[in-house]
């Protein structure tokens, strides 16, 4: 498959994430949109590493090019999982305090 398809998909996913963050007020949906952006970038990384590998294999059959990116993606997923747990914990705490998950209530720190 041409690389452009991946890029196009990632671009759309990322844009959906951005628009979601900008427009929605529900904290959980905003959070999901952030995850969407993160995963769009992750997917792009995987796609580029695969492309890189494919290109290198034509020259050398035993190449390991692009392997590091594949591994790196796993690291990103792990870190994202940790981040999700913290983010959800914040949302839970917020719900306990305000009985709402509307992010517009978060501007109480103002003033």
């Amino acid at each position, binding site marked *: 498959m*041409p690389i*452009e398809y991946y*890029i*196009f998909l990632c671009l759309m996913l990322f844009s959906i994430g*951005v628009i979601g*963050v*900008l427009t929605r*007020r529900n904290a959980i949906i905003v959070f999901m949109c952030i995850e969407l952006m993160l995963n769009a970038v992750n997917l792009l990384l995987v796609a580029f590493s695969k492309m890189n590998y494919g290109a290198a294999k034509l020259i050398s059959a035993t190449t390991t090019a692009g392997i590091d990116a594949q591994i790196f993606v796993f690291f990103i997923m792990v870190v994202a999982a940790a981040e999700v747990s913290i983010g959800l914990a914040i949302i839970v705490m917020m719900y306990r305090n305000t009985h709402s998950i509307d*992010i*517009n209530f*978060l*501007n109480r*720190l*103002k*003033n």
Partner: protein
Amino acid sequence: MKILVAFIILWPLAGFLFNGLGRNYWSKKLIAYKATGYIVASFIASIFAFLYVQDNGAVTVHYFDFIHTDSIKIPFDFKVDALSSLFLLVITGVGSLIHLYSTAYMQEESAPHYARYFAYLNLFIFSMLLLVLGDNYIIMFMGWEGVGLCSYLLIGYWFSNGNYNYAAKKAFIMNRIGDLGFLLAIFWLIAKLGTVSYSEVLTAETVAKLSSADITGITLLLFVGAMGKSAQIPLFTWLPDAMAGPTPVSALIHAATMVTAGIYMITRSNILFTHSEITQNIVAIIGISTALLAATIAIKQNDIKKVLAYSTVSQLGYMFLGLGVGAYSGAVFHVITHAFFKALLFLGAGSVIHAMHHEQDIRKMGGLKSKLPITHITFLIGCIAISGVPPFSGFFSKDEILAAAFEKNKIYWVLGLVGAAMTAFYMFRLYATTFLGKFRGSNEQEAHLHESPLAMTLPLIVLAILSALGGAIGIPHIMGGHHWLTGQLSTIVSTPQVAHLAVSTEWILMGLSVAIAAIALLIALSRYSKQTDEEPSSAIGKFFYHKWYIDELYQKAIIEPLNKFALFLKEFIEKKVIDGAVNGSGKLVQFSARKVRLIQNGQAGYYILFMVVGIIILFLIWFNDITILRFIHTLTQK
């Protein structure tokens, strides 16, 4: 010689420091003795210097290097030659007499002010000596500024009177205009020759190096300096106003010495002036016009000091006429005789003012002949001397200038003769109104009339003798004399311009000028011994009475436009443009801050929105090249 010359100049400085620093401590007697004593000491030293020069010729004494760089060297040298030693004698001699006179004249002042007066007077003598002794234009300029300063200080001596302060400022500012010309001339000399020493500048070889345009420029600028200091058209209006100062100051500074500094300077630089025909003509024309203008004004004035002031301006005009026609020694001769008789006249006027309790209007005087016998006789001698009646001194010096003018251009001579007639007329108008006829002042004033004390009459007597006999230093050849002064100055003045007229012509010229002066004199005597001038009724009389409206002209033509321009700068440029720019930038920041800070509303969503917009803009800016365009192109192709 080095020490002797240092003595001449340091005595007055010592007097200045002594009186200036100790003005709150010394008694008036001590101040008077010290101040006068220092000048007399300086006079005695000057006599020795003069005699030394007579025997050994000119000397230059070197003290130290005033300015020393790679490109220019200005030594602090003094030059004592025939010209400067003559001026030394006049300055310190007349100066001592006037100091002596002042001790009595200023007696009413309290001790600190008395000391202040003498400190200024001593400082003036110091500056004047610096001016004439200096061996280069820079030192002359230092003295030149010094005398200007002292003139300012002494005109404004009675500083509690606002008008006197204005007069002082006027004198200072007008002098500054002239000084600028002098300064530019010095710069020009430095730029062209790299030196300002007389011994290097004023030689035939150096002059040959300068183009004629240079010489004309330099001499014209020097003459502008002389115009300011010596009160010539158009910078003369300060001198009559300078009469605000005490009368001895008018005698010393504004008649005998400072105002002749311009003549000294031009005589010193005569080699340059002789090489510029244009400048010489300008000097002569300005000189004769000033002489006539001031004489016409003097005829109509009623203030005793104002008449003398305009007379001084007029006589200075004669001196410049002399310089312009190349009669340098004649001009110096007139400087010396004028110093005698004009100082005498001013001091006599001071004596009258003293007796009249500070009344200066001659219409309220009259009949003082019997009340002030010594003042009367000496004043009369002064009047005769200035009117040019032989054998008094003014006759010889004025005649020498007129003869030279006759030789150069007959018109100068005719105008000079008219001026001489007017001189005789206004002087005898002054004399007759003041001393003849009946007393016209109040009874109280009449009761207090008294002859002045000896300290005042003694200088009068000495000056009267000098005025009467001073002509002896320049008796022309046709009268059997050998003109000592011209012989003296032959080393300084490049081409001693003795009139080479036929003997008979010269006699006729003399006879004519004496006859005209005598007629004018008799008319004035007969007309004013009984009556005084009323307010002038004719147009021309009013014109002269109001001094040709020259002050008004300057007011309208120069001062008011300047004030308007200054007001424009203040109101528009300063307030609108400069303040506008400064305040405007402040206001702009405040205004934009007030608008921009509303963006910080605490809504996280907005922040993210702005962040995204910002990143998009950054992307567009940074990747706005062929790469991104091609990529977008490929995307749309698929």
